[in-house]
């Protein structure tokens, strides 16, 4: 999946996870900074007095065992908390003359500290940062002076925090992590949706317009957002309206112009008829020419009007279901009649029904244009062959119209269906019509969700392929040679 949605979703999710991880890591890093280390050490200047006074009280009141038990319990707690400390986690209580009151063995480096403490006033903590020792002289219940010495452990490192997360709260940690992932995931999903859904709507609208649905607009859910995407949607709609108006104006102009030319041309024909009635023999030749040109104009305007009508799509409002093979049969029979005058023929054989839904007249005109085109181009004495069959997917009816004419140049093939395109070969222009017939065919089939294409057939001649979707459910109807003609 390379969709915008997936990208946004994954990126933001990843971002949130990375940010959370960074916060955890930097929290560890902050704790091991030097200022924190000082603050940590300062803490022990309070702790040393507290522990010292308590130990001295226990000793004076309850005896050595109680005091030692207390110190041992402190050691267990400290060792548990500060697993990585190098120094032994043990507190000491000294009486006057540097004698350890609780009969603990004393590491030798403490002697130096004890000496330094001799002259130090009571009740004030002293920190030996280098040795990481805190000491205080404490006045006991009976007035004697003790010296309490305790190690200052290293502040907790990142490793310790890490081990705290993984080992000490392993199960809960996973739950926290999962919760963060799920909440972040939900948030990112919403974010990605929020950004991509209007983009998708824009894309759909654009695609519909590209497929000639000029009335397509971006819907209101995009426009009410009041952000840049909503503005984009509004601009898109304005653009679509403009295109719609322009295309319609152009089509209307085409139709209007054709209609307007119709009237003077009709008058021209009448004037020509009148002139002919009084014409002398020598002017007849020119009148013939005028009539030929007027006739060409007639045909051109007829096709322009037909194209305008097909493009307007008005005929699609009255669709009916009919057998495409019968339609082709009718056109083929007319084509055959026309071809006889040119010493050619049109052959069409079919065995089954191909039910389609659409505008009968429009589709017949579309097929007719292809067949007449083939009749015009096929060589004298040859046959225009028309076949109809189901496509491989069984979804479409495929009509093939093949002539035995000169065919088309390969570079002309894709352009055959463009209006007024008559091919680049001047020899073939002579036999061409107004140049709109195949354009009408293409538009008519497109409006019915069909396709048209042309190719040079093996052995010479052009083969035009017309595809039209069949009705979704084609019931098997009994074959009748004389099928009932559909009524309008």
């Amino acid at each position, binding site marked *: 999946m390379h969709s915008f949605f997936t990208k946004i979703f994954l990126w933001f999710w990843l971002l949130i996870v990375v940010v959370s991880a960074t916060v955890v890591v930097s929290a560890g890093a902050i704790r091991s900074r030097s200022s924190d280390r000082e603050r940590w050490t300062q803490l022990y200047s309070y702790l040393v007095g507290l522990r010292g006074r308590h130990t001295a009280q226990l000793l004076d009141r309850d005896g050595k065992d109680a005091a030692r038990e207390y110190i041992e319990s402190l050691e267990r707690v400290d060792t548990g908390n500060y697993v990585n400390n190098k120094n032994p986690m043990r507190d000491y209580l000294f009486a006057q003359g540097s004698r350890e009151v609780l009969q603990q063995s004393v590491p030798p480096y403490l002697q130096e500290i004890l000496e330094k403490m001799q002259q130090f006033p009571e009740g004030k903590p002293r920190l030996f940062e280098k040795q990481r020792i805190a000491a205080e002289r404490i006045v006991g219940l009976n007035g004697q002076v003790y010296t309490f010495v305790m190690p200052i452990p290293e502040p907790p490192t990142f490793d310790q925090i890490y081990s705290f997360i993984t080992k000490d709260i392993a199960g809960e940690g996973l739950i926290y992590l999962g919760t963060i992932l799920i909440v972040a995931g939900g948030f990112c999903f919403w974010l990605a949706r929020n950004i991509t859904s209007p983009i998708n709507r824009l894309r759909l609208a654009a695609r519909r317009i590209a497929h000639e649905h000029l009335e397509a607009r971006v819907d209101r859910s995009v426009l009410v957002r009041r952000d840049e995407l909503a503005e984009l949607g509004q601009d898109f709609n304005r653009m679509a309206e403009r295109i719609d108006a322009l295309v319609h104006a152009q089509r209307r102009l085409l139709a209007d112009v054709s*209609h307007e030319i*119709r*009237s003077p*041309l*009709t*008058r*021209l*024909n*009448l*004037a*020509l*008829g*009148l002139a002919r*009635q009084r014409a002398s023999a020598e002017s007849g030749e020119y009148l013939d020419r005028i*009539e030929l040109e*007027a*006739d060409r*104009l*007639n045909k051109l*305007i*007829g*096709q*322009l*009007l*037909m194209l305008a*009508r097909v493009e307007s799509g*008005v*005929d699609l409002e009255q669709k009916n279901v009919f057998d495409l093979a*019968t*339609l082709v*049969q*009718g*056109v083929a*029979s*007319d*084509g055959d*009649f*026309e071809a006889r005058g040119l010493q050619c023929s049109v052959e069409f054989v079919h065995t089954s029904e191909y039910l389609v839904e659409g505008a009968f*007249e*429009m589709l017949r*005109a579309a097929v*007719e244009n292809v067949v*007449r085109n083939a009749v015009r181009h096929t060589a004298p004495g040859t046959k225009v062959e028309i076949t109809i069959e189901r496509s491989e997917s069984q979804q479409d009816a495929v009509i093939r119209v093949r002539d035995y004419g000169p065919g088309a140049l390969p570079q002309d093939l894709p352009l055959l269906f463009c209006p007024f395109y008559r091919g680049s070969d001047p020899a073939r222009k002579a036999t061409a019509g107004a140049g709109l017939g195949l354009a009408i065919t293409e538009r008519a089939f497109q409006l019915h969700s069909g396709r048209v294409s042309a190719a040079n057939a093996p052995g010479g001649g052009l083969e035009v392929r017309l595809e039209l979707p069949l009705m979704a459910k084609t019931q098997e109807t009994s074959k009748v040679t*004389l*099928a*009932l*003609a*559909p*009524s*309008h």
Partner: protein
Amino acid sequence: MTDHLKRGVGGSIRRLIVAMKKSHKFLPRRILVVDDDEELCQLLSQYLTQDGFVIEAVHTGSAGVERTLSGEHAMVVLDVMLPDMRGFEVLRRVRAQSSIPILMLTARGDDQDRILGLQLGADDYLPKPFNPRELSARIEAVLRRAAPDPAEIKPGASEDLIDADLELFSGARVVRRRGQQVDLTAVEFDLLKRFTKSAGLVLSREDMVRAVLGREFSPFDRSMDTHVSNLRKKLGPRPDGSERIKGVRGIVYIYVLSAPARR
């Protein structure tokens, strides 16, 4: 006249004859042109006068309806595009009262106009721009068809029982189905006559265009299909539900008589 005959001469042709008698101005070749293009009407008038027609031109739909119903004309040439109402509306109003032959001028490339025109009861159509020779020939053909053959106007003589529930009176140009008169245009009437003459035989569209429309068949001309389709609709199916006219659309047609019931 017997009651039977009175009923026989009822309908379209009777209305025409009454109108003819009522109007002293009626001329067999007087033609009404309804078109808003005045210059065209002028040229048309000149051209058709040469062919022996008498032309009257009006330029609006309402005037067209009024003049058509005056009964002074043998036929009407009616343009689809009129300033005040569509030619179809004129046709509809006229057909409510009269069966005067009407030729429609339609837009070329507009099959729907052609179909609608013929469905509403126009006798023929010609797409604009047209060749004036063609127009003149079509007018002649329509007039010929509309004029009752004098040989056939013999009361009661030409009554044909053509189907179990269908009667055709050639002289009166009347068709009845189960006693009810069916309003047919001149073309549809001739078409039905042609069908009944050769019931059970396959008729090609070519032959029918020549015999009924009185002109040469040109391929890709669909008017015959529309006429047949209209006729089929007006006649409806037989009491047993079967179609009277069968065929491959646009190629051949066949009028099938009902098989005699087995006893």
